[in-house]
């Protein structure tokens, strides 16, 4: 039962990331929808831990890159080194060759280094020295970044933000969670001993199940109405792209799977909308809106068909 497996995964993750059920679930939905995830938050709220937990639970081969401003593309994708024995260049794969790549503080790197990673995300392959190497299957990037108003950062442009299916933030834990966190064991220890929840092949069956969640014509009407309103309706100066529409549907399917349903409801779409649309929409007016306010503005303007 794919939905039972999904439930097991969320429960296990929530035991470590305390008080962040919704964010954990969104992150899991993002992966089940085969999308890349961007976590945006201040340091120390558990971004990296979340990535670690997901890798462990899903049994994915994990790599981590700490982005810095002096980083070069070769530091990510790999480099060709001259081999004296056969007198030729050999390609040494970089850390990008992993199933789950944690790109920590991606906005610290220069645009050049950022774009090397983002290209890999889109194509799921790496081209270097005139040759192409396929990345492992599956391939996910979980990138974290500090909010762009901090010093010494290179904010991602819209075109690159669009490659992330979701952008979420974790925020401070509430009082009870904070207490449990302070009183409990070291999270790092817990992650290190976290058992893999999935049997081989189970992850693929989850992907498969998410892809086959039923989407009825009435729901497509609704998604289309949302997209149309974001483009032409009052209140938005930048609307959702067709890619965003596809992503929204995929994310809603994964969300329905996590909810144990075999069909997508408008509620599923509305639930993932802040994470999927928050970094793609722009509202009219001078004050920038947060993802939740943006999504609420869109949702409340479009009646259910």
């Amino acid at each position, binding site marked *: 039962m794919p939905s039972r497996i999904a439930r097991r995964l969320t429960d296990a993750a929530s035991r470590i990331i305390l008080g962040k059920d919704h964010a954990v679930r969104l992150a899991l939905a993002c992966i089940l929808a085969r999308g890349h995830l961007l976590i945006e938050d201040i340091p120390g709220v558990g971004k990296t831990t979340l990535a670690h937990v997901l890798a462990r639970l899903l049994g994915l081969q994990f790599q981590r890159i700490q982005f810095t401003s002096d980083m070069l593309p070769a530091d990510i994708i790999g480099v060709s080194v001259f081999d004296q024995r056969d007198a030729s260049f050999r390609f040494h794969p970089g850390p990008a060759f992993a199933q789950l790549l944690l790109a920590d503080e991606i906005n610290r790197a220069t645009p050049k280094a950022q774009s090397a990673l983002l290209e890999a995300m889109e194509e799921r392959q790496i081209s270097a020295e005139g040759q192409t190497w396929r990345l492992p299957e599956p391939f996910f990037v979980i990138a974290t970044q500090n909010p762009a108003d901090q010093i010494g950062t290179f904010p991602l442009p819209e075109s690159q933000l669009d490659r992330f299916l979701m952008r979420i933030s974790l925020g401070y834990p509430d009082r009870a969670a904070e207490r449990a966190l302070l009183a409990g064991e070291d999270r790092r220890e817990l992650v290190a001993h976290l058992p893999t929840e999935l049997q081989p092949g189970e992850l693929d069956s989850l992907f498969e199940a998410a892809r086959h969640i*039923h989407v*009825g014509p*009435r*729901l497509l009407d609704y998604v289309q109405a949302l997209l149309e309103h974001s483009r*032409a*309706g*009052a209140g938005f100066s930048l609307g959702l792209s067709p890619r965003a529409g596809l992503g929204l549907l995929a994310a809603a399917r994964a969300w329905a799977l996590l909810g144990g349903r*075999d*069909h*997508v*409801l*408008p*509620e599923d779409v*509305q639930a993932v909308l802040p994470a999927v649309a928050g970094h793609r929409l722009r509202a009219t007016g001078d004050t920038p809106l947060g993802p939740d306010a943006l999504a609420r503005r869109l*949702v*409340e*303007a*479009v*009646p*259910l068909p």
Partner: protein
Amino acid sequence: MPSLRRDQVGWLLAGSALTLAPHASHLPPAISALCALLLVWRGFINQRGSRLPHRGLLVVLAAGVVGAVLLEFHQFFGKEPGIALLAGLLSLKLLETDSLRDARAAVLLSFFMQLGQFLYQQNMAIAALALLGTFASIGTLLALQGRAEAFAPRAAAAARLLLQALPLMLVLFLLFPRVQGPLWGLPADAYSAVSGLSDDMRPGDIARVSESAAIAFRAAFEGDPPPPAERYWRGPVLTRFDGRSWRPGPSRRQDQPFYRSSGIARPYTLTLEPHNQHWLLAMDFPGPADGLVYGDDFRLLSREPVRNRLRLELVAHPATPVGLAEDPRTLREALALPPGFNPRTRALGEQLRAAAGRADDIPALAIRHFRDSRLAYTLAPAPLSRNDVDSFLFDTKQGFCEHFAAAFVVTMRAAGVPARVVTGYQGGEINPVDGTLVVRQSDAHAWAEVWLEARGWLRVDPTAASAPRRIDGGLAAALPDMARLPLLARSDLPWLRALRDRVDAVNNSWNQWVLGYNPARQQALVASLGFGDTGWQSLTALMAGSCAVVMGGLTLWALRRMRPGDAIDRSWSRVCRRLAAAGHPRHAWEGPLDYAGRLAREAPEAAPELALIAADYARLRYGPTPADTALLQRFHHSSRKFRPR
């Protein structure tokens, strides 16, 4: 305030241009040019996305428009200056319009200007142009209301709206209580441009009327139309002659004919174009009819000047003997000749009287004399001297029908036979498309009437003596110089005539059924619907009822379209309606599960069973399609029984 989108301004400009363009036919050219310039300027601003002109400049321009109107009309009151002012102001308004509110005001003004076209003309072309303007204005309102959209779907939506208004328009047109004549007083310049006969006649007057191809009236006969020789339509009867001009004598009026109709009856429907006069141009001799006035000169008259197209059901009795017992004063008047005029014609008259044994033979002798004199029938006779009858009969020998009629009457009077001139129309043309007889201004005619003992007044048409084809074939057949005729009355362009016939037929039905829809027709319609009492109260009630039916039908249709079509949605809507009535409405964007969840938190007592219904609905509505029938039945059952507290 948000500024208008480019497509909104485009619609606004198109609507205003389509509204103002038909006005160009009557606005002074300077005003039309000014409006066009302002519209083009606004279009240019829209195209370039540049700024609107400064308010100060607009004030100067507005003063310019007002000045131009003042310069053209010397006043602001009246139809013409009023419309000109509004046209200028509408164009100016667009130059300061950059907000929804201003745009709506401009659309409102456009609607008014579309109505204003009907102050000038009410024909079908004007109606079509007004409709086009209305269509564009509705498109503008849609553009102002909604988001940007391509032209075609927006135009289709506007057309759909117009179409939906059609039933309501029909009800209001057919049933709104009608009054005879216009509802409001028109300014004094309203009837200045009406053409037709007048009630005096000088040489050349009829010829001048004949140069117009405008329609004077139409007649639709029941059965065969009468032969051309019977088609004499009586206008002013002129008895007094002062040597130059002819005027009507004193006449008595009553609401019964001055004769007893007899002989063959020819019923017909007369549709008279407005000519701002009392006479009704009935064919000789009209039988009794209600509400009309009869003159002792056998004219049919109306109580009010004919200022709107008038539709009359009449019967003509061409063979009726009239004036058998004529008033001696009238006869004296019909024998009077001004002293010192036309000595040669008077001599001719006395000569004829001597030649004829009896008075009854004199007219025939005179006609023979006319024919022998070889008088020429022409629209452009040579100029005449002071004694114009003399110089026509003996010198120039060229004349139009009024010369023939005047000369004949003077000759008769000189011979001691009472005679007078009758003006009106003769002939007309059958439109092969719809069979109506169309009589134009070019059919204007003058003929004579003589009075003989025991025979009464008899019609004599001296024109027929010299140009018999005028009577049988109309003006075009009788005249040698075709070129001076109005283009549409010429007989040498058959395709043009065929086209004209077709257009006339369409116009005629428009006049009959749209413009001619008067109180009488309205009453006939209401009576035919089975309502005996046709006072304005019952009409109003009928109209209100019909409006309610139409609006109800449209509302039902809209609701059916808006409301979810199938049973699942109807059941769910019912659940939501009941909850809303209980004080817990669903947000339009709220999904079923969220709604149930919210109510479970906010008002758990309201609907404990809602969660189940909502889950069933979600599954049925959004789940894979062949949902099992047990689920469907459970959902319908529970939603029907559902009663929130």
